[in-house]
């Protein structure tokens, strides 16, 4: 264990001189690639039950790794004095494991992009319905990708940043993508307006309570609520003084901002917390079922 710990902690392969490191890395990548390619035909020859067993074992081992890293005791300095007391022997492997996940994500991104481009190329070639939109997508895709790649190369000083690249990237990124992003987000304000107009109707007691509470909060949280309560109605602002009578205490607590804050902290927060507990427990139960391959949904 100590040897393994030392090896992982030192990450000795990555501390080799530059030339050997590249050679090692290339060998490891090639080895993994050959192993992976070799595994595919082996898996294909297996019957479905055998294939499932392999999936179950790999899933279990991967889950076990993360669970063990969390649950195993830390601070092994009594046995291995040179160890870092804030981690156990699996901790150094977390970062490479996360890197692997990111590499898988990046490969999937390539797959997704390929699928998208293939679909729209087909739309154009076969002149399917509304194929004009596909041309817009393809042209935008190629233009944006070209300028982004060139910009990254220019940042690394591999290509020269000419005025065309400078201006083109600025037009595409600052004046197009950023603005379109902001425009899409601002659409939500309009959608909230139409959804609220349509949905907030007094159809039942519950709906009425919901509507009036929403109105109180909407006015209470903006300065207009403070203006109406404290300037127009002259209600006292701030907390009621110690030992104040009931009427004074009421006056200090019925300002719209106070009511809004009370709704948010005393009604909304406990309800949110209860839902959060449920979601957390549900997620954990789902994770356990997946780890032990008890969930048959997508597998």
């Amino acid at each position, binding site marked *: 264990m100590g040897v393994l710990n030392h090896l992982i902690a030192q990450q000795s392969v990555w501390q080799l001189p530059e030339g050997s490191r590249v050679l090692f890395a290339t060998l490891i990548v090639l080895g993994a690639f050959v192993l992976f390619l070799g595994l595919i035909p082996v898996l294909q020859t297996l019957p479905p039950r055998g294939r499932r067993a392999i999936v179950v074992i790999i899933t279990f081992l991967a889950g076990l790794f993360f669970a063990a890293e969390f649950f195993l005791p830390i601070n092994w300095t009594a046995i291995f004095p040179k160890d870092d007391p804030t981690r156990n022997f699996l901790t150094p492997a*977390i970062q490479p494991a996360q890197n692997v996940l*990111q590499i898988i994500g990046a490969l999937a991104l390539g797959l997704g992009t390929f699928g998208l481009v293939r679909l729209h190329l087909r739309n154009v070639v076969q002149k399917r319905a509304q194929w004009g939109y596909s041309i817009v997508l393809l042209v935008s895709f190629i233009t944006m990708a070209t300028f982004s790649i060139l910009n990254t190369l220019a940042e690394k000083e591999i290509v020269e940043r000419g005025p065309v690249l400078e201006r083109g990237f600025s037009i595409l990124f600052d004046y197009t993508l950023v603005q379109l992003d*902001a425009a899409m987000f601002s659409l939500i304000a309009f959608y909230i307006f139409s959804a609220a*107009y349509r949905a907030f109707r007094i159809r039942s007691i519950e709906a009425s309570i919901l509507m009036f509470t929403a109105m109180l909060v909407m006015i209470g949280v*903006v*300065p207009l609520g403070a203006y109406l309560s404290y300037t127009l109605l002259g209600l006292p602002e701030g907390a009621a003084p110690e030992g104040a009578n009931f009427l004074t205490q009421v006056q200090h607590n019925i300002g719209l*901002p106070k009511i809004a804050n009370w709704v948010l*902290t005393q009604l909304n927060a406990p309800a949110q917390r209860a839902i959060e507990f449920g979601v957390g427990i549900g997620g954990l139960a789902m994770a356990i079922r997946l780890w032990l391959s008890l969930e048959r949904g997508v597998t």
Partner: protein
Amino acid sequence: MQERTQSVWQRMLGIDRRWLYLVLFVNIVTFLVAPIRMPASISPPVQKFYDEIEKLQPGDLVMISSNWSASTLAENQPQLEAVIAHLMRKQARFTIISIEAQSRDISYRLAERVTKDKGYQYGEQWAHFGFVPNLIVAIKGMVNDLPNTIKQDVRGTAVNQLPVVRGVKSLSDYKMIIDVTPSGTLPIWISYSPKNVPILYCPTSVMAAEAYTYLDSGQIKGMITGAKGAQEYEQLLGVVGLGTRFMNAISFSHVLIILFILLGNFAMLMNRLQLRREG
């Protein structure tokens, strides 16, 4: 066959939503330019936020996690500007970190602009650590060994060469973490950051609702809610920033929505009455 004509109430109920959009648009534009200033009532979470930063001593180090991009600029930019202004007033040092490229560019440019006005030196009093693709891994790494996790700042300088973080080994050496974000990064900071470092939170208005539970439990020490919270914060700082400028439009949009909800309900009741009368 004679087509039955719709009553005015029915037409109101089935109004084309584009009319609603036009009314809202005109309302927003009008109150964005209208020179009305309404003072805000300072909400407890904003007051707590302010008080927490007031406790900082000159030279204390603060980590700002800035994860917003152009889409939520209207809410997060006023927050970040107000927070940096307060940190500079307290002469605190700060470093910024993001989780994607656009957030990095925007927060870096913003911090450069606002620090330049106050004579804050990059590298000496503040720095930007660029972006990290995986926040969990980054926080875990920074807790154990900050310089080796971040390696270099946004300008390519090695982190251990930056005077602003000289002697800093871990995130535990920071005095405060401030998360300015439109997404679900807060639970990650709460879960993985050192427990001796208080967390302050600047969410968009819609994300604030779920943070009250953390505020209550003390897992975050204060919160600035969207542009509205930013206005309150600007008021506490005694400055007029973007939050104050945006607030009129937000206030009167709320009023407009309430008016239309009431109008819709009135139309629904009148329509029901009319149908009952007609049998």
